[in-house]
């Protein structure tokens, strides 16, 4: 049955005219195939859960990889759903209440620059206080991934709530949209594209930290969760190249599958949420989305089952959140509540500060000196990584961005390479670098580079491809020399993009220092001077005052660099070098 309706045999022209005569399209084939594969995998995996999953040791047999991959994906999904829920609530609060905004936004800014790995022992300790250890470890891992996924999503949601066009906002108010309708027809659709893009970024960030979240030590104890991340780490520890290749291959497969089956279709679907009133010239497309849309099976399923289900849900939500969402100006009508909340908040804050201060007191003078030295060393390393990244991404990015033929060739390749989380490559890099002089000191720079160069590259490609054709022609007509062309056209045009990429890259490099400057490898731990190493060592040794102090230092350093350096350049870029 399915062979008859293969793509080659069904002329698509007739499908629309005579849907009943040709009940199956190639879309149905895809849907059936997908269902079949999913079922098969589910049954196979379900029937033959190997014992190794329950063991505390990580198995390196390739046969165990599908299970590990499934477990890792499950963790990612759980963390992502948590992030999404968190973002919707937090962003809404910040956008709709002036008072909340004053506290929540700066807090988010701080949270964003906190080195995520420092959260882990804290999270683990908190969870294990009231949960069995196995559950606590799992939750701590999910929480860690959450902290790498949530912030940009929250910002995206907040941003789009704040930038809803005034006329649409007013139309919803004048037509007295209840809260649910407002959310469903105004806020969510307006934010959709930004949320999808940020979700993709969040998943990329999640993979990065998954590696660290599945296997870590806090204090004297080692914790390991079966998963792709721990598989790769274990493979590196044992120095098994074969297992590393298997693990990386699985990783790439999953990322490509997610891209093709989830993100591309979502982007193609989200085309309709574009605000512009003209048809876009290069709409996002996806073969899988086209297949799903062309599938009659799915259509029937939608009409018979899903649509009535959604309609009922819609009705229910409308009843629950059916009050017209009028902007209340009467926030001040309950001053005692605000006073009480404010008082409680300040009290908690004061207690917290006191405790934190007392904690810092336990850090010895020598340790503070080490932290400062480490700060300097890591700063140098971050700078080196940024310089190296710029040195190769600017020429390549401009080449890809300005030459469509080269772009067609390299873009997919670059995307796949960039999608491999740098942490997954760490073991491979270490195997290579540790044999050379310089050792971890040099390797750490390279590791930071791995994690951050892509932000720069993609931004530069975007910037270079945004240079209007006519400016290129003008430059050619003026017979500018190559140097002049770079100076007057290309560098100014990509400058804002370099800055945007640079901000993310520099923050990322600081964060990566924690995993880069201290590694456990082949059964031993290696470290080099640096703030990241101090944080990682403090985590491993369970020295919480030191961990706290070093983390604080890193937050301050990143925040200061952002304020004093990047923000200024950013403003300069926005004002002077904008092409529009």
């Amino acid at each position, binding site marked *: 049955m399915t062979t008859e309706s293969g793509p080659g045999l069904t002329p698509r022209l007739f499908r629309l005219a005579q849907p009943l005569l040709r009940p199956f399209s190639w879309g149905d084939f895809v849907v059936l195939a997908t269902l079949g594969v999913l079922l098969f995998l589910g049954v196979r995996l379900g029937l033959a859960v190997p014992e190794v999953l329950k063991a505390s040791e990580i198995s390196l047999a390739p046969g165990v990889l599908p299970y590990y991959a499934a477990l890792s994906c499950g963790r990612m999904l759980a963390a992502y759903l948590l992030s999404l829920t968190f973002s919707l609530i937090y962003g809404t609060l910040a956008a709709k209440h002036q008072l909340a905004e004053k506290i929540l936004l700066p807090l988010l800014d701080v949270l964003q620059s906190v080195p995520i790995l420092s959260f882990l022992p804290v999270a683990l300790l908190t969870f294990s206080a009231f949960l069995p250890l196995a559950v606590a470890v799992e939750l701590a891992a999910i929480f860690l991934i959450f902290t790498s996924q949530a912030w940009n999503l929250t910002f995206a949601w907040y941003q789009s709530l704040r930038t809803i066009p005034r*006329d649409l906002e007013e139309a919803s108010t004048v037509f007295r949209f209840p809260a649910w309708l407002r959310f469903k027809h105004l806020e969510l659709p307006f934010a*959709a594209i930004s949320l999808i893009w940020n979700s993709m970024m969040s998943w990329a960030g999640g993979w990065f930290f998954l590696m660290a979240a599945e296997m870590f030590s806090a204090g004297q104890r080692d914790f390991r969760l079966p998963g792709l991340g721990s598989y790769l780490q274990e493979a590196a520890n044992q120095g098994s190249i074969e297992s590393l290749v298997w693990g990386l291959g699985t990783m790439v497969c999953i990322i490509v599958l997610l891209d093709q089956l989830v993100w591309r279709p979502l982007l193609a679907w989200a085309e309709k949420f574009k605000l*512009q009133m003209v048809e876009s010239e290069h709409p996002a497309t996806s073969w899988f989305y086209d297949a799903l849309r062309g599938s009659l099976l799915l259509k029937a399923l939608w009409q018979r089952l899903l649509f009535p289900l959604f309609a009922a849900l819609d009705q229910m939500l409308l009843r629950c959140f059916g009050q017209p969402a009028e902007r209340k100006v009467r926030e001040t009508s309950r001053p005692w509540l605000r006073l009480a909340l404010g008082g409680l908040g300040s009290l908690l804050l004061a207690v917290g500060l006191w405790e934190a201060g007392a904690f810092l007191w336990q850090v010895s003078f020598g340790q503070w000196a080490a932290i400062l030295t480490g700060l300097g060393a890591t700063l140098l390393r971050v700078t080196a990584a940024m310089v190296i990244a710029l040195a190769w991404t600017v020429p390549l990015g401009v080449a890809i961005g300005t030459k469509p033929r080269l772009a067609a060739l390299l873009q997919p390749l670059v995307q796949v390479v960039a999608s491999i989380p740098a942490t997954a490559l760490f073991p491979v890099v270490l195997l290579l670098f540790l044999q050379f002089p310089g050792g971890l000191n040099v390797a750490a720079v390279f590791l930071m580079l791995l994690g951050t160069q892509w932000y720069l590259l993609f931004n530069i490609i975007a910037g270079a491809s945004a240079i209007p054709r006519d400016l290129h022609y003008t430059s050619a007509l003026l017979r500018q020399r190559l140097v002049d062309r770079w100076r007057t056209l290309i560098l100014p045009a990509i400058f804002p993009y370099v800055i945007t990429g640079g901000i993310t890259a520099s923050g990322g490099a600081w964060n990566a220092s924690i995993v880069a400057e201290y590694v456990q490898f082949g059964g031993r731990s290696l470290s080099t001077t640096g703030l990241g190493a101090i944080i990682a060592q403090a985590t491993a040794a369970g020295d919480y005052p030191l961990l706290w102090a070093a983390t604080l230092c890193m937050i301050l350093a990143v925040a200061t660099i952002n304020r004093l350096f990047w923000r200024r350049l950013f403003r300069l870029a926005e004002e002077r070098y904008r092409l529009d």
Partner: protein
Amino acid sequence: MNSHASLLDLRRVSQVYWSGGRSFTAIKDIDLHLEEGEFVALLGPSGCGKSTLLRIITGLQKPTSGRVLYRGEPLEGVNPHATIVFQTFALFPWLTVLENVEVALKARGVPAKLRASRALDLLDRVGLDGFETAYPRELSGGMRQKVGFARAMAVEPELLCLDEPFSALDVLSAESLRGELLELWIGGNIPTRAILLVTHNIEEAVLMADRIVVMDKDPGRVMTDFRVDFPHPRQRKDARFLDLVDRVYMILAGHTQPEHLELGTAPGEPGRTRALPHISIDDLAGLLEHLDAMPGNRADIYALARELRMSSDDLLQLIDAAELLGFATVAHGDITLTSLGQTFAEASIRSRKEIFATRLRRLPIFKWLMAMLQAADRKQLEWDVVQKALELEFHEEEAERQLETVINWGRYAEMLAYDDSSEIIFLEPGAGVSGPH
């Protein structure tokens, strides 16, 4: 239809905005009365607070002071009996034409079964059947606005507010849509009790409304309010029509005042600082050249708008600038070129700049800025410093626009220079020294 029941009453409504410790009055002491059966046009130059007033009437915004009564009751929150048709259509781009109308019904709590048929009926009435499943981006501007009208009708408003609904459309679809709206309104096919049309298009107001309320700016206030009592359908070539359009132009263009009133005072001094109209100097030169070619160097302003195919708003701004610079005078709805204006129109580019510069030196705002620059260190000032000083007279946005205009004019006259990257205003060498007083 009981046509004399009061629908809407505004009593001494004012809107004041605060910025940086100073207040700016957007609209001041507006009294407005609307009865059932009335089609009222609210007409005025841009910046006179028409749209602010519309937001206050629909309850989107609460006025700083004054009372808004709807059917005798004070208005609390959004007025459930009023709706708006927006200049920008405000359609949800992700919903189809049908869904855009349905969602308004859904918000009103119309049961799911009735929604689709009601929405289809409304779309049918505005002539959009066949386009139910189209997305707004697939439609022309005129058709989008029809969806906007259908959506507004869906909630069966008593008071239909139109916020410049035709100004984003091309001439022909605007005209046909006006006709269709009038047909619905006059035929009594809609449950709407009164229509309030905000516009800056004088002919549109005269064509459609039973009453025209003319507003002026700085601060926004009602200048005059009169009835249009000849029957529909009105012809644009009709003598009564032309006469009325001429009259409205006369009111809006005003009379050229004696010079000291026309020029106003410098920022920071007692008295009003005259806001410079935001026009391009090329357009001004074009207008003067056009007048120079007319017999007697004069023209009827409303006729001028037709000849030049300009919106009344843009034309009035240009005329304002010509008056301010002494290139033309306005009286009784006519504009006449002064001899200086004639010289300017016939002069070469170089001499034009010189004439322009001598005129600018008479404007208090320029005198003030030149004196500041003379006194300043190295004869230069930062943009922000000047803007802050201007904010003593204008609200922030307006101060910024005023400074932009001042710099544009000053650059044209070669009195000022401005460096965009350092945001510094310079005195052109020699510009401040010479010049007759």
